């Protein structure tokens, strides 16, 4: 029985119930024992009373007086008889003349009392001890003594010398009576113990069912790999950052199921897991989890395993593995992503998401490969989390960088494009939009961020009245009434801003309601603002935009500009055609991604009026360009 499937609290419950049962039993024993002790003490006092009485009758020379006076013996025998109650089997007195044998002095028995001075051999050595030490003692009698439970031996002392022993035998019947005195309580305890035993039995059955259930939910029955629930439980108890995690996905596993059937698919999966287990069992604390149909995770302790070596060897092992099914040899390909979980990482789901993204990247490149997430892992894990981004936006921890757009020929700055950055105050680091933009796009957080960007843009326009700015406007912004209301309000209040502002419409989403978008843009143009198509040539409906929207600027996408170095001639032709198109629509053209002198020179050659890129100017706080 593995401890993973056992709940320690159930064990604690078992222990408590059993302790309770034992305690109840002990209480009854103790109660009965105390009762017996009390009765024995009473008997001791009773013996003292008898001795006091005898001493009262015979103040001196007990043995001599009894030897000489048979009528006195008879009288005292009668007195002992009077002291006999139901609880006593025998009361008698012995002496031991000359330290030889014990002989009867007195006997309180009604029927056939012992003759005076007849010999008595006690089996217990306690008689001698009491004779010598002159203290009352108890002798618990053995079964060989008939009808006697306990004997109380009391010394009869005259002038410091033991003259006789008074023996009070408590009857077995009385012992049994005391034993049975607590019978109602004992019966109650027995009933409670039966109830406890039944409870324990029921608990054991439940425990067994719980064990089976836990095993069922923690271990995948088909492959014997653990389930995701086990993974989550494991990392609730263990520090995630002490481990490497490898995600394995069987490429096109559904084709195995489709071609050979699900039963064969299950056999393949089982063999697949066995193959992984053989690879990982060199390490300690490592295990494998099934998180999807053909998707698995391997968890390895980072101290014991070198991730690069392990992933490579596992990948080769799985690639080379052959499955013999129905007289056929099957080979399956896998894609793998792996991560050395960075320090202080707590969220398992983030790690899995990053692994999943890496796996998708590998699959999109053609599958059957592996990738290890390197240094970017920490950033990905920290920033690619909607809660963290939300927290930054709540704190308004957002800054705008401004990248200058130059006149290509004169290299004079004509305007600046506002580019959003979130700011990690702890690490004093500006976060690029690629880390968070796709996380928040389509959510209320995006609108919140856009409003903060526009706020910054308007403040910059106010602060620097001689500059022009360009700002991105996503379709989500356009469809948000609050957003448009805010822009319109500012522009109608500060009409001087409008003519210095260009709205760049992003092309990553298709416009379905051109009428509405046209209305918004026309309104902005009435204020005097310009409309630009951002990333022209990369996304949706480039030409539709040109046709349906009244555009002022075309910004050629960086991916096209980049190709100038590889496919110079063809790219030049494309750029020329865009320029011609722009000229015919009376639009200005801006080339993005002018990252070095070579590309800049191409822009000069192609007579592209405006250029933007790292070669000319990096995105920076506006103050760095203007103050």
């Amino acid at each position, binding site marked *: 029985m593995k401890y993973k499937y056992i709940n320690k609290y159930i064990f604690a419950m078992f222990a408590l119930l059993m302790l309770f049962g034992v305690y109840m039993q002990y209480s009854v024993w103790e109660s009965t024992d105390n009762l017996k002790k009390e009765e024995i003490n009473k008997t001791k006092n009773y013996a003292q009373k008898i001795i006091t009485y005898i001493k009262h009758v015979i103040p001196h020379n007990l043995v001599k007086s009894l030897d000489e006076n048979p009528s006195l013996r008879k009288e005292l025998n009668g007195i002992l008889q009077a002291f006999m109650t139901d609880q006593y*089997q025998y009361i008698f007195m012995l002496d031991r003349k000359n330290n030889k044998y014990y002989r009867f002095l007195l006997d309180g028995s009604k029927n056939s009392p*012992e003759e005076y001075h007849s*010999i008595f*051999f*006690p*089996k217990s050595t306690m008689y001698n001890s009491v004779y010598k030490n002159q203290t009352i003692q108890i002798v618990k009698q053995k079964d060989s*003594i*008939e009808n006697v439970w306990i004997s109380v031996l009391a010394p009869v002392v005259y002038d410091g010398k033991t003259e006789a022993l008074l023996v009070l035998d408590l009857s077995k019947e009385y012992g049994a009576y005391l034993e049975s005195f607590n019978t109602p309580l004992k019966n109650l305890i027995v009933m409670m113990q039966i109830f406890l035993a039944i409870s324990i039995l029921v608990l054991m059955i439940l425990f067994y069912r719980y064990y089976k259930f836990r095993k069922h939910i923690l271990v995948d029955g088909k492959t014997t790999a653990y389930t995701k629930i086990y993974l989550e439980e494991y990392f609730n108890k263990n520090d995630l950052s002490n481990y490497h995690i490898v995600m394995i996905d069987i490429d096109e596993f559904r084709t195995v199921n489709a071609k050979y059937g699900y039963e064969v698919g299950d056999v393949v999966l089982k063999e697949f897991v066995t193959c992984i287990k053989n690879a990982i069992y060199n390490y300690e604390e490592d295990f494998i989890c099934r998180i999807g149909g053909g998707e698995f995770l391997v968890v390895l302790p980072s101290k014991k395993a070198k991730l690069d070596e392990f992933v490579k060897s596992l990948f080769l092992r799985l690639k080379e593995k052959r499955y013999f099914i129905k007289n056929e040899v099957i080979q399956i390909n896998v894609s793998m992503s792996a991560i050395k979980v960075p320090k202080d990482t707590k969220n398992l789901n983030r790690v899995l998401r990053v692994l999943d993204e890496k796996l998708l990247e590998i699959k999109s490149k053609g599958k059957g490969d592996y990738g290890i997430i390197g240094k970017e892992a920490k950033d990905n894990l920290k920033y690619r989390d909607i809660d963290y981004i939300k927290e930054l936006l709540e704190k308004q921890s957002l800054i705008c960088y401004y990248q200058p757009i130059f006149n290509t020929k004169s290299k004079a700055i004509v305007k600046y494009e506002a580019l959003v950055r979130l700011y990690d105050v702890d690490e004093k680091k500006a976060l690029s939009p690629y880390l968070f933009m796709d996380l928040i796009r389509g959510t209320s957080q995006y609108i919140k961020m856009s409003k903060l960007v526009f706020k910054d843009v308007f403040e910059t326009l106010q602060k620097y009245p001689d500059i022009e700015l360009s700002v991105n406007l996503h379709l989500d912004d356009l469809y948000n009434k609050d957003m448009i209301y805010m822009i319109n309000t500012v522009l109608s209040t500060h009409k001087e801003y409008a003519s210095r502002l260009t709205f760049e419409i992003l092309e990553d989403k298709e416009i379905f309601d051109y009428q509405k978008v046209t209305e918004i843009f026309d309104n902005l143009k009435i204020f005097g603002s310009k409309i630009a198509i951002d990333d022209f040539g990369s996304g949706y409906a480039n030409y539709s935009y040109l046709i349906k929207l009244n555009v002022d600027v075309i910004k050629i996408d960086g991916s096209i500009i980049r190709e100038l170095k590889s496919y110079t001639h063809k790219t030049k032709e494309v750029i020329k055609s865009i320029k011609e198109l722009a000229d015919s629509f009376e639009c200005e053209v801006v080339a993005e991604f002018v990252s070095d002198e070579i590309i800049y020179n191409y822009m000069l050659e192609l007579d592209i009026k405006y250029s933007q890129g790292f070669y000319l100017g990096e995105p920076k706080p506006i103050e760095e360009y203007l103050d």
Partner: protein
Amino acid sequence: MKKLLIIFFLLYGQLVAFDKKSTLKIYDKIFTSMFSTNATIYIYTTNIEYRNIFDKSFVIKPIKDIAKADIAFVTTENELKNVLKTNPNIAIFTTNRHFLYNCQAVIGAFYWTKGRKQLIFIKNRLDKYHLKLPQEYEKYMVDEL
């Protein structure tokens, strides 16, 4: 019910058998100690109950011929009288305390008093019959009554 009765009688039979066995064990020990011999000890007794018990022994043998007996075993006054009449020189062992006190031919007794077993031998009477007891029986021997 029938089954219960059978079980009861079987158990009762077992208890009686056990009691007889333990009694025989005691007497086996007493008589073998007294005679210190490996040969069979012949005991004269007319008590049927004790005869049945002694019959089970490997070391003592109950007989009815007092002339061949090593020792006489008496439990009642009539038995005592009969022994004294037929063989006044034979050593007698009894289960009655009073015979020990009142008859000089009785060398020892095994009886119950105050619920306790009592085994007593009288030294000078043992000497008279040239009987010796091992050291471990010294504590049961008295010089006088």
